[in-house]
């Protein structure tokens, strides 16, 4: 995974609560066996009509947000299915940061495995950010968002911050604990399935 760098773009406001992963990436696109190429299907049913023409009025179809890497949205973002395809689609489309008052647990955890930074902020601040027209700088190292007029600090777990900043591979880290895993297995009382 590439290390997470400072980014500075305008925000894409998606003014909805409880956006579920079925909306982020509809089921008909879950049949691919690779991780790449999901961006074109992001929010497919909201972006396109039945003839696959762009729907007017959906925020991603507004040219002005084309290069935005920051999605600002409502509470409980990413609820529903555990499909990591939702995160792959957001990342492939170009989003690296998602700001919301709250996230669903599995989605939140999936973000960090794919170089996306989910930021939880008070809903009042999120509402203000949705209205922000200028660029916002996201500085993960110092845990701060900078608009033209404001500096907004945010919280993040140190371990998760390190994973993003260093682009760490979880598995190789875990395998360093091989001895402890083996030891655990020796005393485990739950037998094999087969």
């Amino acid at each position: 995974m590439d290390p997470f760098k400072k980014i500075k773009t305008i925000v894409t406001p998606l003014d909805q609560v409880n956006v579920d992963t079925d909306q982020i990436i509809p089921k008909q696109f879950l049949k691919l066996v690779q991780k790449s190429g999901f961006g074109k299907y992001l929010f497919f049913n909201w972006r396109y009509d039945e003839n696959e023409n762009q729907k007017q009025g959906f925020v991603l179809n507004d040219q002005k947000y084309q290069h935005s890497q920051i999605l600002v949205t409502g509470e409980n973002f990413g609820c529903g299915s555990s499909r990591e395809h939702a995160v792959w689609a957001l990342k492939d489309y170009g989003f690296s940061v998602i700001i919301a008052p709250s996230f669903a647990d599995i989605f939140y955890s999936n973000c960090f495995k794919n170089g996306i930074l989910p930021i939880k902020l008070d809903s009042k601040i999120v509402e203000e950010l949705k209205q922000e027209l200028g660029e916002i700088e996201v500085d993960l190292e110092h845990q701060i968002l900078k608009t033209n007029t404001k500096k907004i600090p945010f919280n993040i777990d140190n371990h998760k911050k390190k994973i993003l900043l260093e682009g760490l591979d979880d598995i190789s880290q875990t395998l360093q604990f091989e001895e402890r895993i083996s030891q655990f297995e020796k005393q485990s009382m739950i037998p094999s399935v087969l």
Partner: protein
Amino acid sequence: MGKTLFEKIWDSHLVVEKENAPSLIYVDRHLVHEVTSPQAFDGLRMNNRSVRRPDLTIATMDHNVPTTDRSLPILDQTSAIQIQTLEKNCKDFGIKLFDITSPNQGIVHVIGPQLGITLPGSTIVCGDSHTSTHGAFGALAFGIGTSDVEHVLASQTIWLEKPEPFEIRVEGKRKNPHAVTAKDIILSIIKNIGTAGGTGTVIEYSGEGITDLSMEQRMTICNMSIEGGARAGLVAPDEKTFDYLRNRQYTPNNYDVLVEYWRENLKTDQDAKFSKTFTLHIENIAPQVSWGTNPGMTCDVTDSIPFSEDYSNGDENQKKAADKALEYMNLKSGTPMTEIKIDRVFIGSCTNARLEDLMEASKVIKGQKVSEKVRAMVVPGSQMVKKQAEEIGLDKIFIDANFEWREAGCSMCLGMNPDILLPGERCASTSNRNFEGRQGTGGLTHLVSPVMAAAAAIEGHFVDVRELDLN
């Protein structure tokens, strides 16, 4: 201070414990299916890694398998590739697979308990959010993303921040337990706590309203924990639990020794503390029907479609969401729920496609015909459920009533296979999610119990099943 059941299972699976950071947890059972695993196996190959414990890993194909004749080739090429990919991956990495021709094939959360793979006090993961179903047996079971599937395949462990314990007490006795079901209990809970009410928690369901339930009904409750935002939900195991798992195909040889240990240890201590508590009294609850586009948007069958102002209680964002949901669902506020006409009925999914669900639904249908305006189907949760149902003649009852009787799979719960709603079709569904387009682009889903779905199939609209004789 005492511990909750969840905390006991957590503590007994800690490989590496860290303060204020994710801990490394051992995984006892890893269930794998075709949709969320191909990229994980690819990752193993790229890094020259093997599967650490194939003997703790079980695979089946459920999400996109057709539910029609199994001897025919799969017409959808992308589905066929995904299914072949799972076959190859299981072969290459030495994993036991219940393939499309296996008598054990079925929805992964239906076959786990049925085969005795699910065990109390164990940790179970799967790349599927409804893994919470297995919590009905007192297991800590939760859904994971594909990166974590790869991580578990490689290391048999997972990094997890410790969730908070959330107690949901279900008190009282239902007056008509055949009409007001486990599905109605869990929908009532979600209606009350909201779809994010359980975020960051593991729910423990307790109280007379839960211990009264059969194992299959408890699975319905735990299954939808994720719809209330919780990663997992569980019920302390009791004699019903131990009896259910005895003598299954993969029940461990030392089962009685395990049961003795579980009986002693798998319960929440008297003085344990929960971070949150919610109590639902069920004496007077009605059958539930969802009206919106998330499972929290649910009302009594005797209610009318709500006005968004009443639903949102002054929250502007929730009002907007309700307006959008009503528009999508093509519903007018104030319309009595029992006047809503339906086009389709789906009895299936990991929520409600076990034998008891089919038995209960068949009572409503016996000797009746599906309304001429309705197309109705039953998709058993597993091939074993299908076989057991056929042995007691349920297939005949459904087929005589003009239901389609299908092979096992996830089917129209998420419409990855050919079983989908057409745009504008309205469906009474026993599944778990009523999200926009979930059952097919433009499809309109109302979540209900199996008896409610069956009655709606006969009448062509929702009915209060408490008025029927179901005993």
